[in-house]
């Protein structure tokens, strides 16, 4: 059994008067992949964004409860969200490269965190692109615009960019939903390889994908965490009838 990397305790989230998450408690193990599933609007992405405090940017958003990263409450007074985000990286649904070269995209994060040595930055760029399985495709065009890459390559570039800051946890919000099946397969292979060094939490609408890539699955419905457990159990013998209805396609 791996050690717990993240402990979420009685987490609730409000957007103004509307409650987005209701008393969620869950424990996420280190070096595992956790899939978050559920119908649209159930709170999957909201939950993900509470783990690196991206909801801080949403006007009117308010959180109660605790999120412990290695035992330290990320919402405690005095916690710096920028430093937290260095430890908890994020990849978004739509590839969003910066309007810069491929090299500058990867070097952006380390530069923000104080890395000034060009030699070290070159190392980081190569290492991150290799980890994201993109190095062989872009090694000769590092100084070209990131927009010259295909959609799938852009998403792997965004993953490489997130890895360049050496996070401990990587949050992925439907990372393959805007990609074709070939690009999706590459992202899935990549997540499996990344598990060795990172703790991954992946929001997905795709049941098969959740089954293929994840060790644990959390099912959300109307802001509530209905069920959390090993992926195989969630898909073959769910405890809650609502989970069974969802994974068998009766709703959602």
């Amino acid at each position, binding site marked *: 059994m791996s050690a717990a990397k993240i402990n979420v305790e009685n987490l609730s989230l409000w957007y103004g008067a509307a409650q987005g998450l209701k008393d969620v408690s869950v424990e996420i193990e280190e070096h595992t992949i956790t899939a978050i599933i559920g119908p649209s609007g159930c709170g999957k992405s909201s939950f993900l964004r509470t783990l690196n405090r*991206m909801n801080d940017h949403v006007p009117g958003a308010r959180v109660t409860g605790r999120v412990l990263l290695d035992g330290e409450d990320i919402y405690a007074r005095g916690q710096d969200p920028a430093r937290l*985000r260095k430890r908890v990286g994020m990849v978004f649904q739509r590839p*969003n490269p910066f*309007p810069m070269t491929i090299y500058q995209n990867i070097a952006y994060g380390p530069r923000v965190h104080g890395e000034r040595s060009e030699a070290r930055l070159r190392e980081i760029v190569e290492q991150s692109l290799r980890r994201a399985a993109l190095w062989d495709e872009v090694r000769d065009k590092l100084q070209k615009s990131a927009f010259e890459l295909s959609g799938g390559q852009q998403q792997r570039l965004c993953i490489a960019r997130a890895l360049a800051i050496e996070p401990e946890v990587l949050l992925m919000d439907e990372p393959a939903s805007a990609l074709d099946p070939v690009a999706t397969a590459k992202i899935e292979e990549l997540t499996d390889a990344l598990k060795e060094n990172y703790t991954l939490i992946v929001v997905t609408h795709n049941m098969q994908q959740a089954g293929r890539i994840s060790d644990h699955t959390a099912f959300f419905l109307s802001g509530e965490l209905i069920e959390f457990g090993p992926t195989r159990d969630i898909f073959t013998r769910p405890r809650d009838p609502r989970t069974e209805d969802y994974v068998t396609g009766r709703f959602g």
Partner: protein
Amino acid sequence: MAFRRGLGRYRLTQAALLLLWFGVLRGIGPPKGPPDVGSLLASIVGAVGAVAASAAFGVAAGGALAFTPGGWRWRMALSMSAALPSVVVGATLLTWLGDRLGAVPGIGLVTAGLGLLCLPQTVLLAEESFGRRRETGEAAQALGARPAEAAVAVYGFVRREVAGILLGVAGRALGEAALVALLAQGLLERGRLALQAGTTLASALWYLEITGRVRDARAFWPAVLLLLLSLVAAGGAAVLAGERREGRLR
């Protein structure tokens, strides 16, 4: 909200360009006699339309460049194909209507019409542009960047949008300069409205071609230079037109 804030920023640019264009158009004036209120109003409407049309094409070209991950030439062609047919049809109708109303109000109507026809495309692309900029800023913050540092990450988008608009206006100004020079030389006494529509389309295609070759924010300074050159050309042509009107140039 971001879209409204963005529009606010564009308004300032548009106001400055409007003044510039008003000056150029006043320099040209009607072919004979002092300007009447009708032509003056038409010139103002025309100037607004010209700026809107230029900005629309510029944003369309800049936006299409900024947001196309792969196969960008096709995407840009598709994006523009949504605007161009309506512009061609609109220009033809407005040219016909303009001919019935007289030369200067006609020019005003054509340019204003072109601007209006381009507006929906502009709004869509501007919305996409501001949305993408917001998402990119958020991605930068997710890497641990503070707001000021995140602004650096999206700066390239701003430069690209501005470059698109400047290229648009530059193309437009060159088209105008060519038209005015031809009028000043007395080479065209009839059919100027058709030429007006023609130069608008030609300039649109011209800067599409130019922006199509420039893939990133490096387009910014060339765009500024082109704009200045084309405005000098337009200004020179306007002076020529004024001298011809006053009989000093034959």
